[in-house]
């Protein structure tokens, strides 16, 4: 900005180059709002959940730096094999597994797989769900009816079963892997976004101010879209966070049943747990405990975040913060005497002083 040389009046920042900055600021303050507005249990849940999720995200992003070994590595740099079922300690903090993998490394790499798959699945299901929801809501009639029928049926199927079937079919023709797992999970969550967006679209159509805008000759579509956006934006973060938690469980379930990702492609917690079930009988606990705990922590983090968000954003269950106040007391004896005397004495003056004192 050329005018920057002259000390600009504060509001001039908005005119030129500042525009992007304010938008960013608005975006950031939008993200920060639930954190600022929350309190009590909701705030605790929101913050502890965010911390857990951030920890897991760090593990996912920096897994090559954090994990001492590769996810399918069975021997160290000198070519010496780790050995199977080593107890935790020494070189292998979490021990080694049946196949001789380093459990700690697999847990760390597993975070990367989980985050990738869930982000992909959420993006796909949001895109498809929102698109179909808008279509059904806008067009209505038979399109709506058919889509609702299909989505209701999909919703009625056990989520895991749906994911298994999709993974099974895709594995047959596309092959397993991250993308297959993500697509399988996508199928599970499309109906939810579809429902939310469709309901919002239909209610947008019936909003009085949309009708008013139409009466004034404005294009109702623009207003509807804005209304929709603000409505959907409110509920999607909560649904998306809770769905992400659920998606982690579905992914692990797929892996546990053998329809997830093969150990040589990427590390997946559910798969590791499947291998660990056989170990449990022989008392080997570390192969299952650590990947299981990783799942619990990530799902818990996302759930806490989602519930915390819900508590601060959903007016139906939001608690108004109870602020304790001190009420300046009135000398009741004099007030009554005063009252009996017809309310002429100066005691109310003192009440008034108290009042003023409290306001300022």
């Amino acid at each position, binding site marked *: 900005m050329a005018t920057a040389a002259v000390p600009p009046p504060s509001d001039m920042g908005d005119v030129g180059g500042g525009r992007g900055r304010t938008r960013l600021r608005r975006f950031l303050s939008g993200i920060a709002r639930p954190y600022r507005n929350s309190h009590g249990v909701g705030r605790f849940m929101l913050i502890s959940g965010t911390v857990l999720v951030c920890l897991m995200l760090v593990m996912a992003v920096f897994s090559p730096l954090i994990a001492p070994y590769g996810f399918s590595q069975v021997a160290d740099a000198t070519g010496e094999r780790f050995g199977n079922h080593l107890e935790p300690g020494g070189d292998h903090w979490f021990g080694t597994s049946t196949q001789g993998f380093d459990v700690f490394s697999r847990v760390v790499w597993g975070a990367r797989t989980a985050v990738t798959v869930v982000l992909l699945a959420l993006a796909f299901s949001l895109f498809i769900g929102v698109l179909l929801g808008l279509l059904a809501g806008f067009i209505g009639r038979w399109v709506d009816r058919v889509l609702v029928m299909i989505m209701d049926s999909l919703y009625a*199927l056990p989520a895991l079963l749906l994911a298994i079937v999709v993974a099974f079919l895709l594995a047959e023709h596309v092959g397993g892997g991250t993308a297959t797992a993500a697509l399988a999970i996508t199928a599970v969550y499309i109906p939810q976004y579809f429902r939310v967006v469709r309901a919002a679209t239909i209610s947008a159509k019936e909003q009085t101010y949309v009708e008013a805008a139409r009466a004034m000759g404005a294009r109702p579509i623009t207003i509807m879209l804005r209304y929709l956006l603000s409505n959907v934006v409110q509920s999607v973060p909560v649904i998306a966070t809770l769905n992400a938690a659920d998606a982690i469980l579905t992914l692990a*379930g797929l892996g546990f*049943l053998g329809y997830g990702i093969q150990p040589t492609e990427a590390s997946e917690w559910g798969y590791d747990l499947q291998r660990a*079930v056989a170990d449990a009988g022989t008392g080997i606990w570390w192969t299952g405990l650590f990947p*299981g705990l990783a799942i619990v922590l990530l799902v818990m983090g996302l759930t806490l975040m989602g519930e915390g968000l819900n508590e601060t954003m959903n007016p139906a269950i939001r608690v108004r913060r109870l602020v304790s106040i001190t009420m300046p007391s009135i000398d009741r004896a004099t007030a009554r005497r005063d009252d009996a005397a017809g309310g002429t004495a100066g005691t109310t003056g003192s009440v008034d002083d108290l009042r003023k004192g409290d306001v300022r």
Partner: protein
Amino acid sequence: MSTRTSGSLRTYLLTRVLLFVPQVLVILTIVFILMRVAPGDPISVALGGQRTPEQLAELRAAAGYDRSIFVQYWEYITGIFTLDFGHTIIDNRPVTQIFTVNGGATLTLTAAAFLVAMVVGVPLGLLAGRFRDTPFDASLRVFGILTYAAPVFFLGLLFQLAFARGLGWLPSSSQASPIVLATVESRTNIFLVDALLAGDTSAFWNGVQHLILPALTLGLLLSGIFMRIIRINLIQTLRSDYVEAARSRGIPERKVVIQHAFRNAMVPFVTILGLQVALLMGGAILTEQTFNWNGIGSQLVRYLENRDYVAVQGVITLFALVVVTASLLIDIINAIIDPRVRY
């Protein structure tokens, strides 16, 4: 007035039951499309590479896969209405046999888990909602989130490590000890019932012991969800206008909570029980796998591994039918407890 009420209840139930038929048709169609959208026919997928092309063609013709897809669809739908789900490809047995032989185990597991979930989840949810924002509520919520966050197979694994391997209190796999399984004659295919029919109490207790860990595992998962739903329902009910009105008439707080809030909080819970049935079935697949429980879920996994489309399609159809039927039953129950529904 009462005649009108019962009359409208009857009308409601009739329409609801009539609605059931198209619902089933839609869901069956979707299952069929899902299973057949991929290229290739079930026979070549399952047995390709094991037989000569001529043998495969012969099997295809025998199973009717060389006909048009519409004919196959018609056969699938009509088959289901006559309880004919086809024959499995890899071991050529009627799919319905999977249901009759292995269904008992799944039924035992899901029923016991549901019982655990109700007994644990409903009272805890009511208490948490009643005493909201107290340390008690907070700890119950942590419990709820933990049971939800732990995958069933991980919880199962921990139980196995702790109670079976560590403390040695309970068995960790199968429906009963192998010898006991072999001695009890199968009549209903529900082991506990068979043991009772045979008058073999020790076999019955053996079965109960084997049931505890799987039922707890699956039940706790569900109980956390039940608790959360009921807690929120109760909080909303306790704020409702009629609760305030009841207080304004001087109804004692204890009665307000029990008569007005608890009862009304259960209504929305019952309406979403249908969805929980789906969750229960999904969880059962994983629990069966964890505890080596020979139910339909285990069979599904076995047939999936062998790429037996017919068996897989049959099991999915069954699950879908169970869910749709459960939601029908729940709507009926709901109509009976909530007078507004039938209006």
